[in-house]
């Protein structure tokens, strides 16, 4: 899948931006503050969820604009072009509920979840550089985002789990001791929690398989293979091959017996909301957070590429769109060249940003270069490519 047309209206610093594209990677080059990442953010809103910065939708409105924002795009898929429109219109009565408008081929959708089965995307941002050293919550969110590519219902179940957990936490806080009041909520927690854990286990298993295939294909890849493990009681039980219904029963029992402990802690201490994705530097056999900054970045890129390849495999070759912000920054020349090679091989319409176009020299004839300025956007002469021109080497 690839984007052939992108129109931004009053989005962040862009009053109006229109891009007509072919299927090759897109390089957005421009000075700091020109709004390159804003373009990536707009693209990320064509997928389900809150976008790559997870910003509140009103924050995306251009200050001097008319008081709303819109992103429209034509997505080219195997099944033909799909028109996607999304935005915020504060004058609409439902705007106060906090959602964004989503239209697919002009048809209004009830939420961005409708995009989950349609657009697949993966992104890497400078803010993710600390993923391996930062809090477990960041890695869990990263993993759940990966799961979403395979299980469109994952976000909905996560929402139900969280809702039931907040209700249970309130019962704990209010000092309620009537066990029957807890059991109803704990049943919901067990059912959704085990489903969440199972989807994670399945996704990690798929990525591990892809990492192994990649390693066998290019043993000397500059992106070291990552050793992945899921830390969490439910995930461990499922990985050990226990039937999901048994895991559910065990989790139910543990929630029941843990009520007093949870009450003392003021929150629910056990469940998929506490799990972690443990990543190791495979070739060196050490934890990822003990590797150098550059190596962590290379590990992360390898992980994202493996996931993208897995998505492509499930979609019989249709690679997801990759959003790679300031990607060249931490990479030496060898890794940069290897990344571009991988992108070409994958056939993904990757969107890359950077301050210096020279960093993308190796992509020169295989990408469309778009200079970004704060006051708008221009297009350099781009050699015309037929739409079905493929990038395989």
């Amino acid at each position, binding site marked *: 899948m690839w984007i052939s047309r992108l129109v931004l209206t009053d989005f962040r610093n862009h009053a109006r931006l229109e891009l007509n594209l072919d299927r090759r990677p897109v390089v957005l080059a421009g000075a700091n503050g020109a709004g390159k990442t804003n373009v990536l953010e707009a693209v990320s809103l064509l997928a389900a969820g809150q976008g790559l910065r997870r910003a509140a939708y009103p924050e995306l409105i251009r200050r001097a604009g008319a008081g709303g924002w819109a992103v429209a795009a034509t997505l080219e898929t195997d099944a033909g072009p799909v028109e996607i429109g999304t935005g915020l219109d504060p004058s609409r009565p439902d705007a106060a509920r906090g959602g964004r408008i989503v239209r697919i081929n002009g048809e209004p959708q009830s939420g961005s979840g409708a995009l989950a089965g349609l657009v697949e995307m993966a992104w890497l941002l400078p803010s993710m550089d600390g993923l391996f050293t930062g809090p477990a919550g960041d890695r869990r969110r990263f993993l759940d985002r990966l799961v979403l590519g395979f299980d469109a219902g994952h976000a909905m179940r996560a929402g139900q789990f969280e809702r039931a957990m907040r209700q249970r936490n*309130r019962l704990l806080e209010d000092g309620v001791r009537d066990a*029957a009041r807890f059991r*109803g909520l704990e049943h919901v927690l067990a059912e959704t929690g085990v489903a969440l854990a199972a989807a994670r286990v399945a996704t990690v298993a798929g990525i591990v398989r892809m990492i192994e295939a990649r390693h066998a294909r290019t043993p000397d890849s500059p992106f070291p293979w990552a050793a992945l493990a899921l830390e969490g009681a439910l995930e461990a039980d499922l990985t050990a091959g226990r039937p999901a219904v048994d895991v559910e029963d065990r989790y139910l029992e543990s929630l029941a017996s843990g009520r007093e402990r949870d009450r003392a802690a003021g929150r629910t201490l056990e469940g998929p909301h506490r799990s972690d994705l443990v990543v190791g530097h495979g070739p060196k056999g050490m934890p990822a957070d003990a590797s150098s900054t550059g190596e962590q970045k290379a590990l992360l890129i390898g992980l994202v590429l493996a996931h993208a390849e897995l998505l492509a495999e499930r979609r019989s070759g249709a690679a997801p769109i990759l959003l790679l912000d300031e990607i060249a920054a931490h990479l030496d020349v060898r890794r940069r060249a290897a990344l571009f090679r991988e992108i070409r091989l994958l056939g993904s319409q990757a969107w890359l940003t950077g301050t210096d176009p020279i960093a993308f020299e190796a992509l020169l004839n295989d990408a469309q270069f778009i200079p970004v300025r704060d006051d708008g956007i221009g297009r350099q002469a781009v050699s015309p490519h037929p739409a079905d021109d493929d990038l395989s080497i």
Partner: protein
Amino acid sequence: MARKTQGPEIERLIQLLARMPGLGPRSARKAALALLKRRADLLEPLSRAMSEAAERLRDCPVCGNLDTVAPCTICSDERRDRTMIVVVEEIGDLWALERAGVVNGLYHVLGGHLSPLDGIGPDQLAIPRLVERAVPPVTEVLLALNATVEGQSTAHYVREQIAASGVAVSVLQQGVPVGGELDYLDDGTLAAAIRSRRPL
């Protein structure tokens, strides 16, 4: 300061209409204007109907339904099956089931669902009264609650409260909607439909 454009009576009418669900200030103005223009055939009959309803409105002491007679028309209907009670969250749900004409039993309106976050516990709902009702000749209690986190956890709680009475408790089936195509269903609904499959 904004100039006044109409008398206080009309202003008040607009303000009250704007409190109706589904109506904002603009649509309230539109509705008010329609009423004022059609004084004889709409405004006056509506006003009479409203004051009569307000005067005679009763909470049904048995099931929690709203009606102008107590017990309500449904509870007093001798032709209804007195062995079955259908439990719903709100009166709107009762109306929906009645509209479909699929229930011949009696109802019980809980008045919402359990939600600790909103400070709603069993005492705020008509659960104790349901437990009192769940005795012979009643043989089945059907929990027709919403398929939300709160609806499902409330169903679980109610089931436990009734368990001791020996009355059978059932819940609504979840799955493929009538006239629905599998291809368009979300994963959760499909999974529910598979789980609740039955022999043909």
